[in-house]
Each structure stands twice: as structure tokens, then as C-alpha cells.
């Protein structure tokens, strides 16, 4: 998985050692990224977000999917 190669700082700074690209993520973005790396599914992640933050599960799921779209656009995620 491409996500495994990323250097992720707790401040939300992401460095891709293979391409040299850098990214930033916000607090929730960081959580989603780590959860994806740990192999969790989007719906599991959405539930976890809803648990911790002021957000419903369906809304969180839509946002996680949008986040995945971004990762795909940056070629950091492939449909398995």
C-alpha cells in the first residue's frame, strides 16, 4: 500500500519519499490517513469520527469518501 511509505508528522505534515511531494492534513485528515493505513474501512472510519466529533455517520462517510478521492488524485491510493 502506497500510504505505508509516507512520512507522517504529528503536526500534519506528510512527505512522500518516493516522489518528493509534500502534503498537509488537518486533525481529522490525519486520523483518517492513519486509520486507512491501519486497514480500516471507510465506514469504520466514519463511525469512529462520529464517535469523537460533532458529526453524523452518513456525513462523515461522505467526507471520508471525498478524502479518498483526493488521495486517488494525488496517486496515493489505488482501488483494491
Amino acid at each position, binding site marked *: 500500500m502506497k500510504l505505508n511509505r509516507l512520512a507522517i*508528522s504529528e*503536526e*500534519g*505534515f506528510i*512527505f512522500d519519499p518516493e516522489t518528493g511531494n*509534500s502534503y*498537509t492534513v488537518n486533525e481529522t485528515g490525519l486520523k483518517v490517513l492513519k486509520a486507512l493505513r491501519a486497514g480500516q474501512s471507510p465506514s469504520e472510519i466514519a463511525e469512529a469520527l462520529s464517535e469523537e466529533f460533532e458529526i453524523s455517520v452518513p456525513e462523515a462517510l461522505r467526507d471520508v469518501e471525498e478524502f479518498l478521492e483526493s488521495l486517488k488524485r494525488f496517486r496515493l491510493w489505488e482501488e483494491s
Partner: protein
Amino acid sequence: MIKVAVSGINAVDNPGPGLGIIKGLRQGKIPVAPIGLAYDAMEPGIYLDHLVERAYLMPYPSEGEAPFLNRLLYIKEKEGLEVVIPALDAELPLFIDLESRLSAYGIKSFLPTKEQFRLRAKDRLQEVARRIGIKIPQTLAVTSIKELEEALSELSFPVMIKGLFYKALKAYTPAEAQQYFYSIAAEWGYPVLVQEVVEGEEVNVVGVGDGEGGHFGLLAIKKLWITSLGKIWTGVTITHSGLLKAAEDFVRAYAWRGAFELEVIAQDEDLYLVEINPRFPAWIYFAVGVGINLPERLLAAALGQEPERSWDYPAGKLYIRFTDDLVTELEVFQHMVTRGER
């Protein structure tokens, strides 16, 4: 330690004056801790911690006065900022407008007034030149293709096509002139200026006006070698008496306050004013190097002290710009991106 913020620390192929100013401040007698103000996390000055003690990202001036002021006040709170020396064209109007408010918060500066700042418009050069007894290349303001054609019939090719504040392109044919007219009008609006090309030596003078008609030193130079972007690479000091007199007349006539640079073409005895820059040029370290530490004098003036005024310098001192390399950690970049400061 005086905490001084300096912008223009983008020492790239079109460099800002910031690092030259900071080198001058560090070589001066007033102990300083320079703080770099940057508009991008990759501005080289951020990474040069032997020159720039602390670095902060700034919002663009175009984003509004309030965010800009708030950011400066934040830096004031964190660093105890005392003086700011802005060095970029785009931010100057904001700093000039904010000068009294910043001063009330304890952040001093030494800037031209709004009225002085307006003199840099190319359609004001005529009156400035007349007042200080020099010429300007024949210049016609045009706002339509018809007026452009009329202007071209009065001048001979090549001509300069210029925007009111920025951009200057040399046109050799009517078609080129028309093309440049459209592109400059689209980018910088009207009027567009059509100017005769005066053959001669391109010379420059830098100085700091005291706001009362006097100055804290002048330095005249000639650019010997310029890059493809038109930036000085090597230069030499000159003591062109007519040029220095014009600069003194300029300062006296307008009671100029703060840094300025005049760009002039010298043709035998005649001088033609081409541009007024209301700030230090990128080669300001040249003045420091020949013993006229204009950045330090400007700092003293901002602090309300009486700066030195002597400005004897020899002709024939050489200025050499060179490139350098630095290898460092990604961490600084990371901090600038995530925290906006280092």
C-alpha cells in the same frame, strides 16, 4: 537587541532587497535581531539562520489590511517586534497606510508619505524631472490604438511601452507596439505610456531621505552586467556629480522620507529620469560595502535617533553578486508550512 522585521528575503533570480538590508543591519553598531517576513515557505532567507533569526509567513497584502495588521501584531506579541523595514512594492502602500497605527502599537518604520509614494507613477515623472532640473525621455500617455498610432508617429523606433507602475517592453515595430499596448493595458490598465528610447549610460542612485529635505547618504552606481531578467549581477560605484545633485534636489524638493532609488539615463551632460522606486533596491548591500550603511541609518531614523550623514565613497568600487548553495533539513519547511513560522 532591536527586533527588526525585514521583508523581501526572497533571494532568488529576481531577488528582493531583504537579505542585503539584513546584512547591513548586522554589520551596524545597533545590535539587531532580524526577523524575516516571507510570502512563501520556500523563500531562501527563511533557511539562512545566520542572517535571519526568526522567520514568519505573511498573508498577501491583497487579502486585506486587517489580516496583515493582525499578523504583524502577532509577531509583535511573540517577538517584541520594534521596527519594520518593508522592501517590496506590493506591500508598501499597506505599510504606509498602517504606519501610524503600527507606531501606536510600538512598531516603528521610516517610510515615504502617501503623497511621496504616488510620485512613482510614470505619468508623474515629468513634473518630478522638471522640478529637479533634469529631463525625461519623451513620454506620451495613450489610452487607445488611435492615440498609440499618433504617439508612434511622433517618436522613432524602437520605443518603450510601459505600464503606469510596472512593466516595460521595447518595441521595434508598430505591430509589436500594438501587441505590447494590449498586453500591458490588460494587465496594468490605462494609461499605457509610450516612451522614446534614450541612448546613454544607465545609472542608479540610492539614498535615504530624512523627511525634511536632507538625507542620510547617497550612493551612485552603474550596472556593468545584468541578467536576462534585467537584474544587476556586477556593478561599479560612480561619482557622477550631476546625478548626485539631481538626487539631492529630489530629496529637497519633496522632503522625501525613507529609502528611494532613482533610475536615470546619462547622455553626456543630460540626465533622463526613468523610474523612482520608493524603497531600497536589491543591490542595497553595495552601499553597506562602501561604508554607507543605509539600512542601519534608516533603522536609526525609525528609532528616532540621529543617523550618521557622511557619505564619502570612492568611485571604482566593485559589486559582485554570486550564487551559493545550502543543504538543510526538511524540518524548517515543515514548520513554516504547519506553523507559519520558525
